[in-house]
């Protein structure tokens, strides 16, 4: 109907509008006032925050290289959403635009900060890797680690001369000698070649102390020290990027939530805090707090905004995961007592525990603790037979929450395995590798088979998630550089692919209010863009070379084939038998993804759906970045691999060294 025709509709045939009462006007006035005031505060505070970030970026306190006390970028990344929660709380519930804007801004800001960490401004380095600084006169110096420096030649090849008085370098400025002030004008950024933690923050949190009764002196000694310790390395930084990216896109994807928007956004932002904290915490207690913090918002997000069986799904998810977490807690406490150090620091315990628990008598403890940690993480990944919460939670959760569930929450499990289980208990991990491999292959094949039998689109995608996480686990079980690289690749790629698949399922469900595969048919001509994107995502999911999904599968299978350390006879070994079985899963995956496409998009149009429309701009904005990443990583995975390469390789070497196995090449 054109604009002209609309005007022709007589007034009395239109929607009857209630005359506004005085009470209504009062309400509107109140809403307006609240929105105006909160909006004003919001503007001021947001500008202040952004300005503060920019200022601290340039004065070097945002990212203070080498200083664990000054640097605070990770804290900002984690807790910026809390500011958003605050503003959502003071906002009027009816001013939806404000709530959406606020929530979006405070999910984008962490993402933006992560991009700053990723791209930032690099500092110049000499060929030996020394950072380059300049003195007052603009001469370049290479700073050595002990604080002294080498003057570097300028373009004409002249090296500036400095006088040294009492060990202090002096330079002549305007006729008088001054001590050299060197400044590194550019900030650090995420350094791909560094093995250890970056952007570290270390502050005192809780010190449990006691006065010794036997000693005469007054000095206290520490029983346990809980620290506020944050940091990222190659294992967590890609996940941080993934989390912030998916949160932003899921936030865009959840703008169509109508019911109790304010509350939804608060829970969503709190969820993001929990996830980001989990990936950056380096203290067991801190980690545990964030780990558990994730459950609560998730419980409410599924339980309130979910589908028909939301209560059941939410409760199942919460209790199941909590059940695992208990073992994690017990494991942490046992680890503390067994190592006998006064620390809960993850990194320190990684150094201590393998030695402390390395002896033959203590080895059983390694196995037990690995089991306890593994149980908790296996439920999160999920690994067969602990996976049944996942289909229920995915199917009942609203779209954006499914994206987060598949894209981030599952990765918390694999992250836990890579960050804690394997490096802290390397020998146990090594001994149990064949069992892990078997579980991985069961995941791959079983998940694919069950997915094939599904009639609900979302459930199909959920089971395919289970199948694909199997490849990450297979990579870890292979215990070589191919495997660990593959695991990390698969984790990231699966986040991207399944995130986009769930968003796509949501697009269809929002329109049709059904997800039954057999109900559709022939949608491609009228949902062209949607169909194309769905086909690309499906192809990536089934591991087509040239798209993101392929590399994780390829390298993990190759890693498995290269592992000859278990039950080897002739040219055959345990993992070489597992790899072909896993390949069966690939065929089944292709079958069910293609059948899915056929049932929804191909064939003659089911006339019931002739009114369906293509994706709108909001949905495109939410999905297309992921599609771009799929294609880009598929064609050129180099940049992604270089993000975590140093860390995963180091992990492999460490595990193999601790478990007493020589390193292997290809």
């Amino acid at each position, binding site marked *: 109907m*054109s604009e002209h025709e609309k005007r022709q509709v007589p007034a009395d045939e239109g929607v009857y509008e209630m005359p506004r009462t005085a009470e209504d006007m009062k309400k509107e006035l109140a809403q307006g006032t609240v929105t105006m005031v909160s909006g004003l505060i919001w503007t001021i505070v947001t500008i202040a925050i952004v300005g503060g970030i920019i200022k601290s970026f340039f004065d070097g306190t945002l990212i203070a290289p080498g200083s664990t006390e000054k640097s605070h970028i990770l804290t900002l990344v984690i807790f910026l959403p809390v500011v958003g929660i605050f503003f959502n709380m003071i906002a009027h519930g009816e001013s939806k635009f404000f709530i959406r804007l606020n929530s979006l801004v405070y999910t984008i800001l962490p993402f933006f900060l992560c991009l700053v960490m990723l791209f930032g401004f690099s500092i110049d380095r000499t060929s030996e890797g020394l950072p380059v600084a300049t003195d007052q006169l603009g001469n370049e110096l290479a700073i050595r680690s002990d604080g002294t420096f080498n003057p570097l030649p300028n373009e004409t090849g002249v090296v500036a001369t400095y006088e040294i008085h009492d060990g202090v370098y002096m330079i002549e400025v305007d006729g008088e000698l001054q001590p050299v002030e060197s400044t590194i004008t550019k900030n650090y950024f995420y350094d791909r070649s560094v093995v250890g933690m970056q952007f570290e923050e270390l502050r005192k949190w809780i010190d449990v102390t006691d006065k010794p009764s036997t000693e005469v002196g007054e000095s206290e000694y520490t029983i346990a020290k809980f620290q506020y310790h944050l940091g990222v390395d190659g294992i967590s930084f890609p996940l941080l990027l993934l989390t912030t990216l998916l949160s932003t896109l899921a936030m865009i994807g959840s703008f169509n939530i109508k019911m109790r928007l304010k509350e939804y956004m608060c829970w969503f932002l709190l969820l993001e805090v929990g996830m980001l904290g989990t990936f950056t915490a380096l203290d067991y207690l801190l980690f545990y707090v964030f780990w558990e913090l994730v459950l609560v918002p998730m419980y409410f997000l599924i339980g309130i905004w979910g589908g028909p069986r939301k209560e059941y799904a939410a409760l*199942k998810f919460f*209790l*199941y995961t909590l059940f695992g977490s208990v073992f994690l807690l017990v494991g942490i406490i046992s680890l503390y007592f067994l190592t006998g150090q006064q620390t809960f620091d993850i990194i320190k315990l990684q150094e201590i525990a393998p030695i402390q628990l390395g002896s033959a008598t203590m080895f059983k403890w390694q196995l037990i603790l690995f089991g306890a940690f593994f149980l908790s993480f296996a439920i999160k990944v999920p690994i*067969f*037979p602990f*996976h*049944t*919460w996942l289909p229920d939670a995915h199917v009942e959760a609203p779209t954006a929450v499914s994206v987060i569930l598949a894209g981030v929450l599952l990765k918390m499990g694999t992250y836990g395995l890579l960050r804690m289980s394997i490096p802290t208990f390397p020998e146990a991990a090594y001994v149990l590798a064949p069992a892990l491999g078997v579980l991985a292959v069961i995941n791959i094949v*079983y998940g694919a*088979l*069950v997915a*094939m*039998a599904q009639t609900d689109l979302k459930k199909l995608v959920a089971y395919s998630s289970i199948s694909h996480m199997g490849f990450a686990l297979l990579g870890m079980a292979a215990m070589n*550089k*191919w495997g660990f*690289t593959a695991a990390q690749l698969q984790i990231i790629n699966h986040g991207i692919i399944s995130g986009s698949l769930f968003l796509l399922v949501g697009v269809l469900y929002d329109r049709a209010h059904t997800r039954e595969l057999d109900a559709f048919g*022939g949608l*491609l*001509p009228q949902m062209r*863009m949607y169909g194309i994107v769905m086909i690309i995502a499906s*192809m990536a999911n089934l591991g*087509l*070379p*040239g798209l993101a999904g392929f590399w994780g599968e*390829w*390298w993990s*299978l*190759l890693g498995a*084939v*290269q592992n*000859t350390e278990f039950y080897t006879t002739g*040219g055959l070994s345990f993992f*070489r038998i597992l*790899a*072909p079985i896993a*390949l*069966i899963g690939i*065929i*089944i995956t*292709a*079958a069910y993804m*293609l059948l899915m496409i*056929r049932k929804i*998009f*191909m*064939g*003659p149009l089911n006339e019931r759906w002739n009114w369906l429309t293509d994706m709108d701009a909001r949905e495109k*904005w939410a999905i*297309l*970045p992921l599609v*771009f990443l799929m294609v880009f990583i598929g064609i*050129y995975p*180099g*940049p992604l*691999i*270089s993000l975590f*390469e140093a860390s995963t390789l180091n992990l492999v070497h460490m595990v193999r060294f601790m478990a007493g196995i020589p390193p292997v*090449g*290809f």
Partner: protein
Amino acid sequence: MLEALLKYPETLAHWIVALPFLSFVFITLKLTINKNVDPKPKDESEKELSPDLKKLQTSVMQGYMWPIIALVGLLGFLFLKSRLGEAAGGISINSVIMPVIWIVLLVAIFWPTNSRHWIQKYAPYISVGAMAIGAIIATSLWIKTVQEGLYPGHATPDTEIWKEAWKINWYGIGDFTLPIGIKLDGFAIFGVWMVTVVAMCIQWFSIGYIWDDDYGRKHFGRYFAKHSLFATGMLMVVLSDNILTFLIGWEVMGLCSYLLIGFFTYKPSANAAQIKAFITTRIGDVGFMLGIFMLGLMFTYANDPTLPFSFDFEHIKEVLYKYDWAKANLGWLPTAAALLIFMGAVGKSAQFPLHVWLPDAMEGPTPVSALIHAATMVAAGVFLVVRFFWLFEMSPTAMLTVAWIGAITAFGAATIGVVQYDIKRILAYSTISQLGYMMIGLGVGSATAGMFHLLTHAYFKALLFLGSGAVIYGCRHIQDIRYMGGLSKRMPITYWTFLAGTLALAGIFPFAGFWSKDEILASVFHMAQHGYSRIVGHGEHAESILMIPAHWSFYIIFILGIAGAFLTAFYMFRLIAYTFLGRHKNYEYRGEQSPDYGHHAHGEDNTEAYDKWTVPPGPLEKEEHDLGHPVEPREVPPSMWIPLVILAIFATVYGFMGTPLFGEGGNLIAKFLNHGYPHYPELDWLTAGLMGSSLLIALLGVHFGLKINNTEAGAVWKDNLKAKYAGLYRAVYNKYFVDEFYEEYIIQPVFFVAQMARAFDTYIVDGIVNAAGWLTYMIAKLHGWWDNVVIDGFVNGLAWIVGFFSDLTKPIQSGYVQNYMMVIIIFVLFYLLSLFIR
């Protein structure tokens, strides 16, 4: 640029791959981003806008995707720029060209006034243009190779001429790096020349064919985008110097065949066929991947394990070929690796038992069938075996498997082809059969013969498929040959070009197929006589090791091949007889008198009004169709017959490159496709005799094909035969029930297992979880009962008992003074009484 083209075509070789890919990207993005803007304003209000304002409005409306795509482009550009800096050799020219290409591409994509109409119209120009440039580069590569008489590639590594070819480091994991690049050896140069020429002709032909279809016209741009992507995949396979990019190209082709078979998305049969094609080839690909893993495994044995594995063809061959596997008691390793890799070839090249997808793939548009399912993609499997020929050589088992699978396929498919009625299906089975011949050639140790047949087959089969497309176009999308006939008069150009292709396929002197097929048969004969010896080392140090001793059973392969050649000639001339000769039968099936009986056929030229050189516009003569009045077949427009003529020329003369008449292994094919591999049959009496006998057999096939299908007596004889061997006829007609077997014993069981797994998951695994939850709940309830009833009951009971007794004793403390007084008095009385009693 021109100088580079003429003197150093190898510096441009990677553009052969890049240009189709860029045209794919360009067309796709253009189609996706640009809106359908109607060139004419719809109503009055829009007319009021000034053109500039309108343009601005359009650009703003279209521009909502700008920022993100621009950012993406910029990032990609930066990455490429930074990476290209590290690339090795000969890249400087490209680092200048690349930014220009990017900028031009971006500007063209986002040029706001270009609507989707623009790209719909010009897409074929872009993709055909890209292929044409590729064909020019490939031709100059070929000319250079022939002129300079060089053996590029591994035979003489000291030749410096090909060093300019493109090579970069892709990415790495730790100390492992992935160098990728272009490999220019004889196989690649002949292959790339074939692919570019054939693909160009097919795309050119498609313009008219697809425009003729209502659905196709709406999706014109999409069709050519996919075609370009397909060509990219095939060229990648041909030009790759390492397995990984080979695999990527291989799978991209799988994807494109999936997309193009299902081009008519509304057709359920096409949907089924596309899935079947993808999954079947995927099964083969799994074997291929395992084979690659197996090579990695062999590496660990043959090499110092600390040395990094490489995916480079040359490197793998260098390391593995020298190692004596039999001595290390690991003879099964090369066999297993070769058989697994062969599995990939079986899937892609539609060999028995994975041949089932190819006939079904005929659901796609005919030019697609020509490109994918005849000329190039199916040949990729053969090309794979050629690339890994050294591996097959090491294992007699693998070679015999290849030969026997090839023989079975060649003969079996030929028998099925005899009884089909769908023009495209006949050609599909003929393709399977010919691929079988190539496999035979490879299996008996003549990579040259296999590759030669691949090349000639590509030209003439593409010609035949395009010819069948022309026939289908002419007959308004009728595909059943029983409704055709008499087309030779109505479509003369199509007829003569088709005849050239048929003669080539049937193996009639001097057409291309004669030389290549004869060479394969000669190789089989050679093997049956002398066995197969592998030659290790070259030049002076060459020594030959007998791998497969001569055996009588190889004559069976020979006989199967000869029988297949007879059948090929037979069914092709059956096709000619049904389609082009005799009278036009479409009228009779519609209950009308064929004009062929009466007067001379009036071949009106329906294409008169069309722009003959580009796109024939307009729909089919729908009105005529709606009338129920059969329309007269029409000749194709020039945009369609020119490609046919080009291909017909190739089909006629290409074979002379491989003729042994020039002697001494001096012919081009032997010279460039033979390096490193032994056996090229030279002209002697035996070869000449074989040539003569195979020609005789083929002529017999032609004779019977025409006799039985083009005469009344033949028809009677045929019907009698059909009645006599009805069971056999049914089995062959139904393709030996292979499809039914798979459906019954593989597909259904897999679905059944999936259902079982789902039930297991829902009722057992989840059941246990829910049961645990329920059990906890019940325990909690029990505990609650225990707590409420027993524990609390005990406490409450105690309290009750106390209360009971207190209730009993409560009345004592009543608060009434009289009661207390009375108790005191009673006790006093008792006391006094006790005093008295004592």
